[in-house]
C-alpha cells in the first residue's frame, strides 16, 4: 500500500506555476528520490505535504485515506516528518528540547525526564547524538541527526529529506545512508531530494523527476541510469566538465603565508596555513565542512582579519585589506553562501555595480545609465534570466549564482576565489559554472576552489590541498588523487606535504 499519495497537486506563486497537477506516491518502506533542476518544484511539493504551503488544488492521501494538512502540526499528526535544506533547530536550546518541541505532552516540562526519553529514543533508532548538548555547539552533521531524531521521535512513518547531503562530507553521507537503510528496514518510508545523481542511484528504489513544475515520470532505479535521469531532468544530454590540458608553470599569483585566524566564537580556525596558487591553475581545497574553509574564504575576502600571517596578490600585500581593496587588487570572489553575496532587496543592476561603485559614480552621484548599461551587458553575456531592475531575491539559485559570477569574473581578475560555487545548483547550472571557472584558469588566472563536493574538486583541480582542523594536511596533484586517499586525509590521516610546481 502507498504510505503517501499526492494527487494532482497544483500550486501557483502569482503567475508562476510551481507545481502543475503533480501526482506522486510513496510506498511503505521505500526510499523515493525527487529529482529536478533548481526551481523544478521539489521543495514546494514537499512543503505542501508538510503543511508549510497550501496547495491550490489537489488531494493528499495518507495510508489510502484523504487528509487535510494545513500545518506542520497536522503533518506530524499523520506521521510525516521533514528535514529541510536549512535546518530548523532552535540553537540556544538543547538537543532534547528541540526534539520534544511542539510535542511534549501535558503542561509541565521536566528536563531530566525529557533527556531520558530522548536518550532512549536515540538508542532505539541508533542515532548518535548527545541529548543534553546545546545545538549551537554541534556540527552540521550532528544537527542533521538531531533533525532526523526529531522526526522519528514524533513517530514519523514518512521522512522527507530536502537535499540532506548538500551540507555533508562523504563520510557523513555514508553514515546518513546507513542510518536510512536501517530505518527503512524498520518500515520507514523516505522521500529523498538531491541533485547528485550517483547518490540517488546508490540509495533510492524509485525516482520521480520534475521539470518546470511538471512531473516527467517515475522510474525504478534498476531500470534507469544516471544519463537517462539527467536527460529527464534537463531535457537533453549532459556531459561532465573536466579540466583539459596540463598546467603551465607560472608565477604564484596568490601567496598565503602562515595565516592563523580565530573564528567568531574565539576558537582558532586556521593554523599556519600556507598556500601558493599559480598562474593558470586551479588549486582545489577539499575538506569536511567546518575545518576552516569558511574562515579561509573570509580572510581572503577581507571580511575576517587574520591573527597573524601574510597574504599577497602578486607582489601586493593584502593582509588586513578591506574587501574593496582586495577586489581592486585583482581578486574575484564567489562566496560560499550566494545569498550572503547579494542584497536581496536591491536590483540586479545595483548588485552588479555595488562592488565597484566608484566606477559608477560621478561626483558622489550615481550614474544610473551606466549602471543599467553594465547590467544589460553582463546579463546577455552570462545568459542570466532576469531584467536589470528585478530585485535579485526573485532570481532562482542558478541565475543568482550567474550574477555573482558575472560580477566576480567580468573584470578579468588575476585571482579567483570560488567557494562552494555549485552548491545546490542543478546539473545545467553546475556545468555552466564549472566551465566558467575553467575559462578563468585557461586565461591565466589563479583559481582557488573550495568545495565539499569531492567529485567537483577532483574534476577541476590541477592540485588538491586537503584542509583538516584548520591546517593543510597535504597537497596532491589532481592527476594522482583518488577519492579514498582524499577521504582519508580529510578525516585527519596525515600525508607528507608536497609542494608541486
Amino acid at each position: 500500500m502507498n504510505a503517501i499519495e499526492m494527487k494532482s497537486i497544483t500550486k501557483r506563486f502569482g503567475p508562476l506555476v510551481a507545481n502543475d497537477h503533480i501526482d506522486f506516491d510513496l510506498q511503505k518502506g521505500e526510499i523515493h528520490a525527487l529529482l529536478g533542476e533548481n526551481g523544478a518544484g521539489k521543495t514546494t511539493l514537499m512543503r505542501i505535504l508538510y503543511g508549510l504551503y497550501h496547495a491550490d488544488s489537489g488531494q493528499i492521501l495518507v495510508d489510502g485515506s484523504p487528509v487535510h494538512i494545513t500545518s506542520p502540526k497536522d503533518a506530524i499528526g499523520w506521521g510525516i516528518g521533514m528535514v529541510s535544506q536549512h535546518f530548523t533547530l532552535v540553537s540556544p536550546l538543547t538537543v532534547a528540547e528541540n526534539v520534544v518541541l511542539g510535542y511534549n505532552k501535558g503542561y509541565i516540562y521536566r528536563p531530566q525526564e525529557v533527556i531520558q526519553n530522548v536518550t532512549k529514543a536515540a538508542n532505539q533508532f541508533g542515532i548518535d547524538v548527545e541529548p543534553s548538548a546545546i545545538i549551537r555547539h554541534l556540527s552540521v552533521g550532528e544537527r542533521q541527526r538531531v533533525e532526523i531524531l526529531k522526526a522519528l521521535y514524533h513517530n514519523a512513518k514518512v521522512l522527507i529529506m530536502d537535499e540532506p547531503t548538500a551540507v555533508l562530507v562523504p563520510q557523513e553521507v555514508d553514515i546518513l545512508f546507513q542510518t536510512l537503510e536501517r530505518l527503512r528496514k524498520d518500515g520507514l518510508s523516505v522521500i529523498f531530494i538531491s541533485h547528485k545523481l550517483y547518490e540517488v542511484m546508490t540509495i533510492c528504489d524509485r525516482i520521480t523527476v520534475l521539470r518546470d513544475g511538471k512531473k516527467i515520470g517515475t522510474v525504478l532505479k534498476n531500470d534507469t541510469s544516471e544519463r537517462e535521469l539527467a536527460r529527464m531532468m534537463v531535457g537533453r544530454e549532459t556531459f561532465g566538465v573536466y579540466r583539459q590540458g596540463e598546467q603551465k608553470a607560472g608565477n604564484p599569483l596568490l601567496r598565503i603565508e602562515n595565516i592563523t585566524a580565530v573564528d567568531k566564537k574565539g576558537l582558532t580556525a586556521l593554523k599556519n596555513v600556507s598556500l601558493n596558487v599559480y598562474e593558470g591553475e586551479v588549486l582545489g581545497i577539499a575538506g569536511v565542512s567546518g575545518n576552516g574553509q569558511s574562515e579561509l574564504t573570509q580572510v581572503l575576502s577581507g571580511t575576517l582579519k587574520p591573527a597573524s600571517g601574510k597574504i599577497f596578490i602578486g607582489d601586493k600585500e593584502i593582509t588586513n585589506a578591506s574587501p574593496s581593496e582586495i577586489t581592486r587588487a585583482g581578486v574575484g570572489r564567489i562566496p560560499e553562501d550566494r545569498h550572503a553575496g547579494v542584497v536581496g532587496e536591491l536590483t540586479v543592476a545595483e548588485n552588479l555595480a555595488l562592488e565597484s561603485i566608484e566606477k559608477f559614480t560621478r561626483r558622489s552621484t550615481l550614474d544610473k545609465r551606466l549602471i543599467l548599461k553594465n547590467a544589460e551587458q553582463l546579463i546577455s553575456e552570462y545568459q542570466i534570466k532576469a531584467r536589470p531592475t528585478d530585485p535579485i531575491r526573485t532570481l532562482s539559485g542558478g541565475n543568482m549564482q550567474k550574477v555573482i559570477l558575472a560580477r566576480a569574473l567580468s573584470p578579468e581578475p588575476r585571482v579567483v576565489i570560488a567557494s562552494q560555487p555549485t552548491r545546490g545548483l542543478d546539473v545545467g547550472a553546475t556545468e555552466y559554472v564549472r566551465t566558467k571557472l575553467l575559462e578563468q584558469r585557461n586565461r591565466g588566472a589563479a583559481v582557488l576552489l573550495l568545495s565539499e563536493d569531492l567529485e567537483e574538486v577532483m574534476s577541476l583541480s590541477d592540485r588538491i590541498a586537503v584542509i583538516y582542523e584548520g591546517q593543510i594536511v597535504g597537497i596532491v596533484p589532481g592527476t594522482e588523487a583518488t577519492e579514498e586517499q582524499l577521504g582519508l586525509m580529510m578525516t585527519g590521516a596525515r600525508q607528507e606535504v608536497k609542494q608541486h610546481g
Partner: protein
Amino acid sequence: MDTFIVGLIAATLRVATPLIYGTLGELYSERSGVLNLGIEGTMFFGAFVGFAAADATGSLWLGVLAALLGGMLAGLLMAFFSVRLGVNQHVSGLGITLLLTAVSLFFFRLIYGEPRIPPSIRSFDQLQPFGNLPIIGPITTQYALTYISFLIIPLAWWVLYRTNVGLNIRAVGENPEAADAAGVNVYRVRSYALMIGGGLMAVGGAFLSLAQLGAFTYGIIAGRGWVCIALIIFANWQPAKVLWGALLFGGVFALQLRLQSTGLNLPYETFLALPYVVTIIALAIAGRNATGPAAVLKAYKRE
C-alpha cells in the same frame, strides 16, 4: 539600623513593585520574540481599568482582576498587529501606547467628568506580617501586590523553564521557523506570551492606582514603562535578574528623594538619569553578549 536605611529599604520595595510587574511582562513579550513598546500605554490602561472597576464594584481585588484582563486584551491587540499582521514592532508598540493612553483618558472623562480633585477610592491596606517589630516590621509593611510581585518572579521563571508553554515561548523567540516546523503554532504562542506580558504590565499599573495612590490621574505612569524596557536588558532577559534591576532603580529613586529631605542637595537629575546611564554602560560592557532573544523585532510569516 537607623530609620533612614529602614525607610529606604521599604521605599525601595514599593517603588520597585510596578517595575517588577512591568519588566516581567516585557520579558514574556521579548522572550517570545516581540519587543512590546506598548508597555507604557498598557500600564496606564491597567491603572485606569483597575481603578474604574474597583470604583464601580467596590472591590479592589476585582479591580486587579479587571486590570489583568484589560492588560491581556492589550497584549492581544499587540499580538494582532505585530504577530498576526506582522507590522513593524516599534511602530505597532508605539501606536498601542498612544491608543491605550488616549482611550483610557477618553473613558476617564466620560465616566468621571472633569473632577477638581482626582477621584479616589480607599486603597489597599498594607500587610504587617511582623507587626511593629523593629527594623523587620517597617520593612515588611508592604502591599499584598508587592508580596505577590516577589512571588511572581520565581513563578515566571518556572513557567518559562518548566512548562511546555514556556519551552514554546523560548523556542518561538529564538527561531520561529524551527518552532513552526516542529508543529508549534508560532502565532498562538506569541499571542499567549503577549497576553501574559500585557496582564503583568497592567497589574503593575494597577498597583499605582489601587495600592500606592488609591486614585487615578493622567500622569500616573510617568515613564515607568520605558524604565522597564531598560531593566529588561539590565536583567539580561532572566526573570531572577529582573529583581536586581528593579531594586537598583527603586533604590536610586527612593534614595534621591530621601537625600533631598535630609537637606543634602545634589542635582537630582543626575540620580534619576543614573539607572539609564548604568544600563547603557552595562550594555556597552556586555556588548554583543547582551543580545536578547534572536527573533525579537522580526515578524514571523510563513511563506
